[in-house]
């Protein structure tokens, strides 16, 4: 028993044992239970949904199939599209605003500490408070819509959170094709980077898979139709309000991250660049932005998983029933606790978990790998 040869190892193990057990039960145990529930028919038979000892049957991936291709689950598909657009605009907004603010503050203007605190404050609010404040400001009759009247312009007419306008519509049936195109574009990009870096094997694998995927997309992919009819999904303009509020809250935090990164860049590097005759723009482009890349990645991960899980902000701003601003987390709540479709709610939960995992796991993996290298 190598394990117990060293007393310290034993003590160490004993010390972390309680948290291992608790994590095992309350995190991984329940994830597994949710996964199992999502493979059952719990909730399909109303007599069993809430009985004391429900009899539930295993039905495999039926719940998932219905969510992605079922006639009545169009709302779930629109929610996925909503989450996609929300995530993209939320991350872009936070990163650009945060970086901008950080660069301004990094130049040590007068009252830097004051402004830093002001920009950081929204982060200390809970999403419920933010949501309530913005709900008032985005009322169609008041708040933001009244702003133009201050300068003599007519009142704004946009319905913000309840607008039903939708742009960039795409049929759900085209999604496999579009996804394949995007993924192969990414693969081509990786291949080019690999060839440039001299990693030939990696380059061949990436370009090979890109070609295969493209071939599939252009031949069989077009005929893969999840739905028997065209169902249009797009970006709900009602989300603009939500994005505004979320960016308002989280850009201060992104600014703090970037500011820490900027302060971590040694002054010598900047001076050396200036001595070499770099203009201010070149300084940022060639020295500072590349050094901030790891911070951008961390910020993207943190913001990305917030946006995928978002629930409380939208619940407070628009309520759970406002379909134009619906997201999967809200739908999970409605499906489970209002419609008693417990298994389907669990399936939505698992899809959310997979989405977040797709963001987090590669990040953790790369972090762990770099730690080992060190």
């Amino acid at each position, binding site marked *: 028993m190598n394990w117990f040869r060293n007393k310290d190892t034993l003590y160490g193990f004993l010390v972390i044992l309680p948290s291992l057990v608790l994590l095992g039960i309350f995190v991984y145990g329940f994830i597994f239970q949710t996964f199992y529930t999502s493979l059952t028919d719990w909730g399909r038979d109303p007599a069993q949904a809430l009985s004391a000892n429900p009899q539930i049957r295993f039905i495999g991936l039926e719940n998932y199939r219905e969510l992605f291709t079922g006639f009545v689950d*169009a*709302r779930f598909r629109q929610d996925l599209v909503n989450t996609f657009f929300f995530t993209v605009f939320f991350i872009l907004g936070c990163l650009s605003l945060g970086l901008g603010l950080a660069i301004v503050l990094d130049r040590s203007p007068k009252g830097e500490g004051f402004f830093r605190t002001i920009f950081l404050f929204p982060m200390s609010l809970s999403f419920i408070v933010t949501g309530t404040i913005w709900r008032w400001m985005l009322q169609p009759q008041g708040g933001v819509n009244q702003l133009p009247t201050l300068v003599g312009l007519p009142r704004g007419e946009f319905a913000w959170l309840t607008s039903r306008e939708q742009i960039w519509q795409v049929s759900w049936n085209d999604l496999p094709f579009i996804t394949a195109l995007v993924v192969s574009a990414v693969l081509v990009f990786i291949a080019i980077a690999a060839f440039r870096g001299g990693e030939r094997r990696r380059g061949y694998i990436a370009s090979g898979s890109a070609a295969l995927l493209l071939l599939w997309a252009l031949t069989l992919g077009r005929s893969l139709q999840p739905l028997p009819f065209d169902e249009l999904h797009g970006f709900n303009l009602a989300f603009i309000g939500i994005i505004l509020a979320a960016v308002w809250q989280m850009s201060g935090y992104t600014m703090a991250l970037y500011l820490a990164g900027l302060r971590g860049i040694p002054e010598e590097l900047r001076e050396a660049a200036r001595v070499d005759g770099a203009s201010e723009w070149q300084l940022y482009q060639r020295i500072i932005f590349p050094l901030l890349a790891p911070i951008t990645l961390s910020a993207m991960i943190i913001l990305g998983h917030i946006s995928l899980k978002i629930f409380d902000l939208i619940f407070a701003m628009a309520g759970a029933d406002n379909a134009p601003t619906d997201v999967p987390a809200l739908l999970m709540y409605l499906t489970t606790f209002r419609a*008693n479709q417990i298994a389907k709610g669990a399936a939505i939960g698992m899809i959310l978990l997979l989405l977040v995992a797709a963001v987090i796991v590669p990040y953790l993996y790369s972090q762990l790998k770099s730690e080992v290298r060190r």
Partner: protein
Amino acid sequence: MRKLFFALVTAALGSLALAQSGKLEIFSWWAGDEGPALQALIDLYKKRYPNVEVINATVTGGSGVNARAVLKTRMLGGDPPDSFQVHAGQELTGTWVVADRMEDLTPLFNQEGWMNRFPKGLIDLISYKGKIYSVPVNIHRSNVMWYVPAKLREWGVQPPKTWAEFLTVCQTLKSKGLEAPLALGENWTQQHLWESVALGVLGANDYSNLWNGKLRFNDPKVVAVWNTFGRVLDCANKDASGLSWQQAVDRVLEGQAAFNIMGDWAAGYMTTTKGLKPGEGFGWAPSPGTAGVFMMLSDSFGLPKGVKNRTNVLNWLRLVGSKEGQDAFNPLKGSIAARTDSDPSKYNAYLQSAMRDWKSNRIVGSLVHGAVAPESFMSQFGTVMEIYLSSRNAQAAANAAQAIATQVRLGQ
């Protein structure tokens, strides 16, 4: 034999003693404006059973949207409240009775002589396979159209009697410069409007047949409901989703709209909060095409299986169903008693007219407020509404509704 007798006497004494003490937890969503009505009932209970500690467990959120989620986690976790508020009808039977979680209350109804005190239509609604499972405490009416009589005189129109008439009146008002003659609020009030349109277009028989499975949702008659609904929506304000039902009522009172279709809690809002006199400050009529039909919803209390203080709960239910209890609760709540023998002098002019209709009209149940369809259908009906509002395709909405009805085995 003597031993058995002795044991029985001890048990009887024991239960008597228990009836006088212990706890009673009442789970409801009556907070805020509705709190005093519940408190009046609890005060009555305390007067009768002073040693029982009453725990008033309320979870706020209109129409019980949050309370129901909490209730479900408590029931699944094996911690049922002693008695909980639930909309009478399918919200109770479709969720809790079919899951075998409730006790049969038929003996209580016989014992208290309630079978003749509650209308038969209501008893049918709270029964499942011939047994009764809850005690209704109040009745609200869903199919009411509200207006301001003085404003209608000013515009020179009468409250419309059918939906066809309504659409004509709507055009008249639009030509007089009223942008949105019908005031409409957030999501659920749109579904509320739908059930009134459905009842008006289909009539009471076909409306009831929707819920027992005899009339399919993709039947041409029901597709026609969606078409009418779409034309009615064209008369409504465009910013509906951003308004609460109170704000929608305000539009009518301020003269920005002529009509609003809302349950009769709107009367409570207009009399209590706005201080208006029923019949003068505001007027009402059955929603178009539904004269002689009373679309009801009702709050009720039941007895979950496995509660700790069963005797206390039965005493509570006796109070809830009694004339005294209902007449203490309802004038404060702004609803009418479910019993037909309550004292009209305690109620205001609107409620008195509702009481007359309650005794004479044909009774049907509300969809949105949990009476006629199980939660699994009602909650997904929001998706159907979404499909209609985003596509304005009556056939697509009708097909979706039928798909959901099939999926949740509506009416079986």
